[in-house]
């Protein structure tokens, strides 16, 4: 008969050094091993969907910046796609290229943050995090040059982007693309073969493919489980159909694969950005639309993009007024969290933090 060890229930979060925002997990442990997990959230709930119903279509854009504040560009893109679908508006080619380019830069930044924090969770004392942030900082610098803000960009508008890139943006981008492989290579050298990282992440937090699909997992987490599914390929929006890139996928769906897939995706994003630079056509950057949009009454649209965290969708319903009747946000972070319990039970406390980090959630997006 085994010793009856009383399970210990501990709150991990909301005030914990590494729960990626104000996520609270009620975790029950037996020794070090997790028996039960219950995520409790809502600490950052701002009611974005309700707020969107009281703002006009352009104003809602500023709310989308604050969903996944690590990847505002892709949020903007998803929202703009939905509104454009709603209005039936075409976007000029140059604007599409600019969107794809910024979205890919944003993806790089977001994946770097995810990778950096994953390693922080492994206990790497901020060194890889600092290297990741150094890289990301250069991208954010470009964003500042492009749209005046680093995080909450509000760059895109329904019908295009608000402004063309300034002249000195292009040399700066070229410079970044020149030094990016070295920065990324350094990170890979530091971590990809590091035995400690390998033993900590390999075969830990394994998410089998069928479970991943059943739990509606999307984005790098799904790809790490082995399905080459990427909305940029499956249902190309903007000009992704003109881009050459690969979809990195993992073998087992463990933490290492998720981490590795993100790093590989950064490389692919670099490819896309350089293709954008090459192909960038001249032309207008914004379809002329009134400042206050009035989509036809009863129209509805579901616009989605492959955000760094997964499939980000906006389901918009219009009633013909200046504000959306309903703006439902399909946030990948929330839905990827559904599988958390499946992933964590049976693993140890230390793995819990890493697995949580490898899902790469953003509380701004989970709670909305």
């Amino acid at each position: 008969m085994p010793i009856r060890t009383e399970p210990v229930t501990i709150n991990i979060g909301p005030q914990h050094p590494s729960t990626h925002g104000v996520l609270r997990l009620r975790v029950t442990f037996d020794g070090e091993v997790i028996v039960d997990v219950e995520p409790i959230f809502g600490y950052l709930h701002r009611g974005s969907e309700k707020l969107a119903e009281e703002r006009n279509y352009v104003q809602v854009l500023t709310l989308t910046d604050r969903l996944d504040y690590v990847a505002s560009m892709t949020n903007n893109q998803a929202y703009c796609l939905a509104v454009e679908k709603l209005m039936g508006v075409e976007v000029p080619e140059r604007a599409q290229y600019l969107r794809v380019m910024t979205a890919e830069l944003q993806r790089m930044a977001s994946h770097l943050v995810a990778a950096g924090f994953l390693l922080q969770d492994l206990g790497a004392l901020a060194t890889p995090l600092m290297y990741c942030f150094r890289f990301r900082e250069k991208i954010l610098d470009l964003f500042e040059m492009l749209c005046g803000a680093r995080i909450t960009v509000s760059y895109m508008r329904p019908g295009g982007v608000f402004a063309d890139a300034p002249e000195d943006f292009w040399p700066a981008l070229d410079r970044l693309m020149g030094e990016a492989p070295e920065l990324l290579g350094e990170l890979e050298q530091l971590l990809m073969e590091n035995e400690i990282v390998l033993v900590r992440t390999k075969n830990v937090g394994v998410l089998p493919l069928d479970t991943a699909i059943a739990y509606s997992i999307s984005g790098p987490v799904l790809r790490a489980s082995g399905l080459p599914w990427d909305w940029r390929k499956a249902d190309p929006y903007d000009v992704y159909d003109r881009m050459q890139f690969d979809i990195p996928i993992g073998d087992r769906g463990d933490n290492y694969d998720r981490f590795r897939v993100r790093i590989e995706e950064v490389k692919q994003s670099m490819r896309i950005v350089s293709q954008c630079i090459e192909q960038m056509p001249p032309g207008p950057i914004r379809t002329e639309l009134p400042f206050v949009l009035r989509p036809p009454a009863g129209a509805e649209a579901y616009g989605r993009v492959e955000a760094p965290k997964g499939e980000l969708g906006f389901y918009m319903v219009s009633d013909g007024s200046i504000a959306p009747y309903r703006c439902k946000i399909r946030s990948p972070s929330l839905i990827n969290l559904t599988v958390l319990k499946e992933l964590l039970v049976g693993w140890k406390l230390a793995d819990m933090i890493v697995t949580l980090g490898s899902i790469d959630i953003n509380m701004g997006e989970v709670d909305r």
Partner: protein
Amino acid sequence: MVPFLQDNVIYRGVYCWLGGNEGNAQWCGGDGLLPGGYEWVAYFVAGLTIMLILVNGALLGAAVFVWAERRLLARFQARRGPNRWGPWGILQPIADLVKLLIKEDIIPTAADRIAFTLVPIIMLMSLLLSLAVLPFARNTYLANLNIGVLYIVAVSSMTTIAIFMAGWASANKFAMFGAMRGVTMLISYEIPLILSLVGVVLIAGSMSLVSVVEAQYLPFILVQPLGALVFMLGISAELNRTPFDILEAESEIVAGYHTEYSGIKFALIQAAEMAGVLAASGFLATLFLGGWSGPFLSTQLGALWFLMKLSFFVFLFIWIRATFPRLRIDQIMAFAWKFLLPLAMINFLATAVQVYFFGFYHGDVPGEITRNEQWVMAAINVPLAVASIVAFGHFAREGIRVPAVRLESIVPIPRVAEVD
């Protein structure tokens, strides 16, 4: 005057200054301040001088180490680090200390007040006590015990109890987690730690640290590469340094066993930890890098050589901390029991056979391994170390395989023909 006092530079200085009476004239060269018969005062003052040096050295060293670690870590991370207080921010630890001193000292209601308060005292005490046998220059030490090596291990094992007390007394689950993890890890690493020193003792023929330094014709890091490696890893586990810092893993259990500590108690625990790194570097330098002996002028510049070697190890500790993530508890346990323990065993058995052989060769004058013999041992032991690390390495690398991420360019082709 006993021989042990004659050898000791500081004792001798203080003793001669204060109490050198006629009986000691032949090596003091004159009378001291005190009249005859008061040698015990001189003796006492001399002892206190060294204690003063040790205590202040440890605490100031901890302060400097905090600063150095923060600066160096910042540089490793492409940052700048603290640089506001004083030149290069050198006064930062003082500012921190003042802040912690005048910070409210909170003891949780649920805590066991006595045990809670005793923890920082015990931690600092065991650290300071372990310094007593450290020779930090030629013939400069508080005491040269015959059991020096074991004394260090024994005294520093009291830290384990302190950590456990901290976790238990805090009545905090994170602290308890940290304490249980910490104690389990510390005791697991103590065995390889003790075993790795057997080789040193075998060659030196004594457990006294002074004899160990004197026996090092070659730095023992060459003669005992495995021992040095195991000791280094073991001691960094004992010090809760990365990659073995599971007992205060901030990303998992907040601050581990000292989650509830604040104010001056926290400062003392930190001081004990930081000074612990210095002490450990000191022991590493003494046991494996020749301590105060240097290539030249080791009599005069002993303290300097010692300090340089110590700084080398301190830098190594900081470097490792800046680079590595932390291991998981089961991996840490497996590392201790399946990797370090056999390595320590191999080292100890190999050294025993070698020493026996050389002792046999010497005939009647055992215990003295000459320089050439140490070269021979180094030549044997370095390849042995590499071989055994490779051999036992695969026990520690269970589950590591080549990275496996494929690139797929195509989305799976739909089974139903697309309608476009």
